[in-house]
């Protein structure tokens, strides 16, 4: 996996760790960006990790583009030798699958969908060879997901399922993007899941909704008072299916300032994970109990 470097104009360096998505590529990208942050290179203004790539914004009046390029390449070789171990947190996110709000929205945009006669989740079940929506929900919520990127719009997490590639859920995006998506929709496009942090346009399939806000510009929600964005790259997410009553209760708790996300600090070791993903995930999830 040799990284590819390219300048994004005179203020960015773009580094593609791999063309394809994999936990290895994500991990390498995250390690290098952590190393870049720690090295505090003068002239570096923003460091943005992505799924299998990353981007560094810089001020060419303070560091010559070629000098920064050389520094990044040096950091890449150091970071590649580092152990693939990450101190992070696992968070349980309640999901009300097949909720009425995303259902109303998907019905409004049926003509932009591959299969206008089925719902998004029925279509996703079919293209993944699963018998029913319930089977799909089991597969979707059965294993944890890595936050492999935060972005697109404010605080939106991209999520990558922590299972072997052959079990990874893949669903094409809508044929044409919708002009509306409810806030906090659980979406999926290609191999990535997401949580829509704000209401707006979107092209990912819609499976459900979470009662747990993840972006609060007013910083009034109890767990978003310190910072308005909840997720960070490297967070691990475990979906917890809830029904309408569970959803309503959680919303009431959020409104009353009582809702506290269930989460725990964990250490993720890529090699140990690769040796047996299911057993390793089970151990990770124990931290939530």
């Amino acid at each position, binding site marked *: 996996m040799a990284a590819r470097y390219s300048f994004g*104009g005179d203020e960015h360096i773009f580094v593609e760790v791999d063309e394809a998505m994999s936990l290895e590529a994500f991990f390498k990208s995250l390690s290098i960006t952590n190393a870049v942050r720690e090295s505090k290179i003068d002239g570096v203004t923003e460091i*943005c990790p992505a799924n299998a790539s990353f981007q560094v914004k810089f001020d*060419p009046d303070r560091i010559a583009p070629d000098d920064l390029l050389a520094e990044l390449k040096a950091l890449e070789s150091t970071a590649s030798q580092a152990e693939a171990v990450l101190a992070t947190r696992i968070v349980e996110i309640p999901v009300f699958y097949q909720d009425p709000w995303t259902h109303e929205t998907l019905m409004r945009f049926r003509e932009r969908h591959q299969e206008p006669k089925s719902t998004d989740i029925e279509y996703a079940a079919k293209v993944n060879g699963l018998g029913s929506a319930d089977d799909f929900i089991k597969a979707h919520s059965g294993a944890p997901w890595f936050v492999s990127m935060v972005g697109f719009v404010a605080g939106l997490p991209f999520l990558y399922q922590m299972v072997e590639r052959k079990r990874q859920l893949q669903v094409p995006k809508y044929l044409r993007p919708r002009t509306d998506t409810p806030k906090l929709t659980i979406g999926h496009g290609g*191999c*990535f899941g997401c949580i829509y942090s704000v209401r707006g346009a979107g092209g990912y399939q819609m499976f459900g909704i979470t009662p747990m806000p993840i972006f609060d510009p007013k910083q009034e929600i109890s767990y978003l008072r310190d910072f308005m964005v909840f997720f960070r790259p490297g967070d691990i997410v475990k979906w917890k299916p809830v029904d309408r009553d569970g959803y309503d209760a959680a919303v009431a708790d959020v409104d009353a300032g009582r809702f506290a996300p269930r989460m725990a600090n964990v250490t993720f070791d890529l090699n140990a994970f690769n040796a047996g993903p299911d057993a390793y995930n089970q151990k990770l999830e124990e931290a939530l109990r």
Partner: protein
Amino acid sequence: MSIKVIHPGLATTIQDLGRPGYYHLGIPISGAMDRLALRSANLLVGNDEGAAGLESVFVGPELEFTQDAMVAVCGAELPPRVDGEPRETWTAFPVKAGQVLSFDFLKGGARAYIAISGGINTEPKLSSRSTYAIGALGGVNGRAVQPGDTLPLGNGAKAVREGLAVPQALRRGPGNPAELRVLPGLYWHRITEQAQKDFFDDTWKVANEADRMGYRFQGGKPLEFVEREQPFGAGADPSNITDACYPYGSVQVPSGTEPIILHRDAVSGGGYFMIGTVISADMDLIGQLQPHTPTNFVQVDMEEALAARQERAATLSAIRETLAGQRA
């Protein structure tokens, strides 16, 4: 210490020089699309260059002043009027308490920057007053200005002379056809040599979808892709990539048909390939492009990009020195 919004125009937002530092979380820098124009307007009225002003698109607002202030309008040719009397753009003029600032029809450019002595003093969010509407940050309660809004003003502007003006030679705007310099890169290798040539040879036109997030262009030949088997995670369309970061100014071309240049309110990443990036020196010009403006993309290398950056910095220095000299 405030001004009252009688009419906001088409889309008027509070902008300063933006909020860097949160792009890795999907919060873009925002701020004035034409920064040189905002800086100029602020200098003319004695503000810090980065003070918050108003960015008006195509149509100016109508503002009632409750105190005396100096005002300057830079960027687009959107002629100001005080109680109906015409005033010059790129020039400081006084507005007295009780008077109304309004605007004539747009004569050129797209975005006018209105600086008022003292600067707009709304509450900063993440160290900036810039409006980022998608994330409900900055501005007036996270949104554009509306009729009835009262915009608080700060104090601390230096005294300036009425009639202080940015000389014509230092006013920068796009030509017609517009030229935007692009450094090829990112996923440039995904299109054929012929497509690489066509992109720079063709004349494009600004589409109607042109806003603070991005500017779309139409009219050039569709770009042919180099064939490949799509990598895992990238999606089926040849223009898809495994979702990655988008540089400011990057040129993405969904399905190879209509290039989109991301601007100050950029989405921070996504799954479309990019063929290069507009150089920093030319980002301001994009904010002054009207829909249907013919546009040529001009290929440059890094050396040329850095020389252009120096040239733009020299223009800003010249504006600073000229105004400081006139003021003394």
